[in-house]
C-alpha cells in the first residue's frame, strides 16, 4: 500500500466489500444465463458458462463474445473473457488477456501462458519456476512421470483438465426457490369478494410451493395492479411461519377491504419476502396444538393492526437493575420463558419511571407526599442497596447508588421507594400488590 502510494500519490483506495461483490456476481450469473444453460461462478471473480452448441445462435463464437462485451460495457463494467474447448484453458486465458482458442489447438493456444494460470498453489508454481518451467508450453513438453513424482498428481490433473484428457463439467448452482405467484385477469375486477377469490387461488399455489421446500411464510405481500397502472399493496405479518391458505386469507381481508380498486384490478401478485424453515408436522391434532394455532392467529391479527412490536411478552434478563431485570420482546419472535425463581427481597408487581417524593422527613421517611397524596409510613423494610452498572451509562442512574425500601403506608398502598445517598433524594418506582 505504502509502495503504491509512493509510486502514485493520488491513488484512491476503498476497502473491498466481499459480500456485496459476491451478491453482484450472483446477479451477473443470472444475466449470463442468457448465453448458456449452464453458468456457474468460478472462484470469487469469475463466471464460467458452458456454451456447447449455443454459439451458432449468436452467429459464431467471436460474435457471441463481441455481443457479451458490448452488453457488459453498456452496463458500465469491464470484463475479460475467453472461449476455449476446456474449462481449464478458458480459465487460464481469461485471466491472461482473453481471446478465443480455436477447436483442437489447446496446446498451442495455451503454450505461452504462465504456469500459475493452471489453478495450482503458489508453492508448486514457484517450484516449477525454479526448475525453469515457467510457461505451460514447457510443461506440456516434459515427460509426465518425473513431473508427477516431483510435483504431485494434482499438477498432472490440472494439466490434463487443461488439455481435455480429464473431463471437467460445468454444473450450474441450484437457484434459491422463489416464493411468488402472479395472476393476470382477462377482465378488471373491483369487488372485494372477487379479489379474495383470486387471492385464495394464489395462496393455494404459493402454499404448495412453500410446502415443497419445507418453508413457512413470515411476511406476505399482495400487489394489486390497477387498470391505470397504479399499484396497491397489502402486506401482512404472521406470528409464526405458516402455510395454511385459509388462515392466511383471513388476515388479508382487512387490508383488501381498504384497497381502492379505481377502475378495476387486472393483475395480482402474491409474494413471500420473508420465509422461515417449517418442517412438516401434524397440525390441528390435539387441543394443545389447536390452542397454539389459535394463539398464533390471535397474535397475527393483533399484530397486523397495532404492530408486532406492540404485542409483547415478558422475558427475564440478567441484571440487578430493576428496569433491566426483564425486557419486553415481541411475542411473534419469541417463545414463552419460564419465570425465574423468586428469591431475595420482594419486587413490586408494577414498575414505572421513578417519580419524586416531596416533603419527605426522616430516613426512611416518616411522612411524605407522592402524586399529591399524603402518606404516613407504617412499616419500612430495607434498605436493599443496588449499585448502577458502570459499564452501561443510563441517565436515570447518574445519581449513583440506590437504597430501596419497601414502605407500607397507613393509607394502604405499599410503595417501593429509593434513596440516592450520593445526591440525597427520595423517589417512588413501584407499587406492591
Amino acid at each position, binding site marked *: 500500500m505504502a509502495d503504491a502510494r509512493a509510486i502514485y500519490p493520488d491513488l484512491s483506495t476503498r476497502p473491498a466489500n466481499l459480500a456485496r461483490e459476491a451478491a453482484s456476481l450472483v446477479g451477473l450469473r443470472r444475466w449470463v444465463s442468457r448465453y448458456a444453460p449452464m453458468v456457474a461462478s468460478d472462484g470469487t471473480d469469475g463466471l464460467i458458462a458452458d456454451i456447447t452448441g449455443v454459439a451458432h445462435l449468436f452467429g459464431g463464437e467471436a460474435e457471441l463474445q463481441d455481443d457479451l462485451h458490448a452488453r457488459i460495457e453498456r452496463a458500465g463494467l469491464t470484463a475479460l473473457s475467453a472461449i476455449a474447448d476446456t474449462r481449464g484453458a478458458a480459465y487460464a486465458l481469461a485471466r491472461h488477456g482473453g481471446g478465443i482458442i480455436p477447436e483442437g489447438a489447446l496446446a498451442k493456444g495455451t503454450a505461452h501462458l504462465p504456469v500459475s494460470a493452471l489453478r495450482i498453489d503458489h508453492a508448486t508454481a514457484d517450484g516449477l519456476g525454479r526448475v525453469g518451467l515457467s510457461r505451460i508450453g514447457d510443461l506440456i513438453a516434459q515427460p509426465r512421470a518425473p513431473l508427477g513424482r516431483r510435483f504431485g498428481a494434482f499438477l498432472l490433473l490440472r494439466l490434463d483438465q487443461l488439455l481435455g484428457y480429464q473431463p471437467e463439467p460445468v454444473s450450474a448452482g441450484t437457484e434459491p426457490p422463489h416464493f411468488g405467484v402472479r395472476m393476470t385477469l382477462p377482465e378488471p375486477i373491483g369487488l372485494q369478494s372477487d379479489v379474495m377469490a383470486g387471492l385464495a387461488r394464489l395462496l393455494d399455489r404459493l402454499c404448495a410451493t412453500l410446502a415443497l421446500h419445507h418453508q413457512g411464510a413470515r411476511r406476505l405481500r399482495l400487489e394489486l395492479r390497477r387498470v391505470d397502472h397504479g399499484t396497491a399493496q397489502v402486506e401482512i405479518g404472521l406470528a409464526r411461519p405458516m402455510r395454511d391458505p385459509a388462515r392466511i386469507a383471513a388476515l388479508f381481508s382487512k387490508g383488501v377491504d381498504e384497497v381502492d380498486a379505481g377502475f378495476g384490478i387486472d393483475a395480482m401478485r402474491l409474494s413471500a419476502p420473508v420465509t422461515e424453515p417449517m418442517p412438516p408436522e401434524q397440525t390441528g391434532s390435539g387441543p394443545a396444538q389447536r390452542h397454539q394455532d389459535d*394463539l398464533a392467529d390471535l397474535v397475527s391479527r*393483533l399484530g397486523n393492526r397495532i404492530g408486532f412490536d406492540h404485542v409483547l*411478552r*415478558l422475558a427475564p434478563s440478567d441484571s440487578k437493575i430493576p428496569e433491566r431485570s*426483564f425486557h419486553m420482546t415481541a411475542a411473534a419472535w419469541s417463545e414463552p420463558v419460564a*419465570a425465574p425463581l423468586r428469591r431475595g427481597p420482594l419486587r413490586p408487581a408494577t414498575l414505572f419511571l421513578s417519580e419524586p417524593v416531596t416533603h419527605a422527613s426522616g430516613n426512611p421517611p416518616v411522612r411524605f407526599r407522592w402524586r399529591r397524596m399524603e402518606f404516613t409510613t407504617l412499616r419500612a423494610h430495607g434498605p436493599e442497596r443496588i449499585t448502577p452498572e458502570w459499564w452501561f451509562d443510563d441517565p436515570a442512574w447518574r445519581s449513583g447508588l440506590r437504597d430501596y425500601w419497601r414502605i407500607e*403506608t397507613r393509607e394502604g398502598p405499599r410503595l417501593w421507594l429509593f434513596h440516592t445517598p450520593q445526591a440525597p433524594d427520595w423517589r417512588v418506582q413501584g407499587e406492591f*400488590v
Partner: protein
Amino acid sequence: MTPLRDLTHRTAPADPLSLLKGRVHEAEGPGRRAFALFQARRHSGTVLWILPAYEPQRPMLHGLPEGVSERLLVLTPKNETDLLWCVEEALRANPVGLVIAEPQQMLSLTAGRRLQLAAEAGQSTGLLLIRTDHGSAATETRWHCAPLPAPDADSTLHCWSTKKNKKGTIGSWVLNWNGTSAAFDMVSAAGERSQPAQPAC
C-alpha cells in the same frame, strides 16, 4: 322474531371473588391492578394485559404471581380505539382466559355492550381497570379495590368490594393475599376488643 335467550339459568358463582365467565367486569380504585393479578392467577389460559403505549406503570416480571408471566401477553396499542378493538378481538379468541385492559376514557354503553357480546362469543372473561366512575352501565360487576394497612408485617390486606352486581348482592371482603400464590385468607371484620387477647397456654 327470534326468542330472547333465557339468561336466568346463569347463576352467580359460589365463590364471591371469582368473576363470571363470558362476561366483562370492571375494577376501580388504587388496588385495581392487585385485583387484576389476583384474577390472573385464578384463571387458566393465556392472559392478555392491554394498556396504552404511553402508560408508564407496567407489570414487572419478578413481582408477578407464580405461573402468570409465562402466559402473559402485554399489548400496548397507541390509541383508545385500537385498545378497545384489541379487547374485543381478544375476548372473541378461543385460547384467551382473561383479558385485562386499562381504558383511559369513559366507556360508552355501546362499547360496553359490544365487549359483553364479544366475551359471550368467546367464553372468556374481561376485566377493565377503569378510573373511578368511568365505567359503563353494561358491566357485569364493578369492584372497588383498595389496599389496607396490615396489623402485622406478615399480612397483606386488601379490601375488595362490589359496587354493582347484576346477578347478586353487593358485598365487601377483606382478605389477606400476598401476591404470589392463589391462596388467600378471608379476614373477618375486626371488632372492638376492650382487652388484649389472652395467649392460649
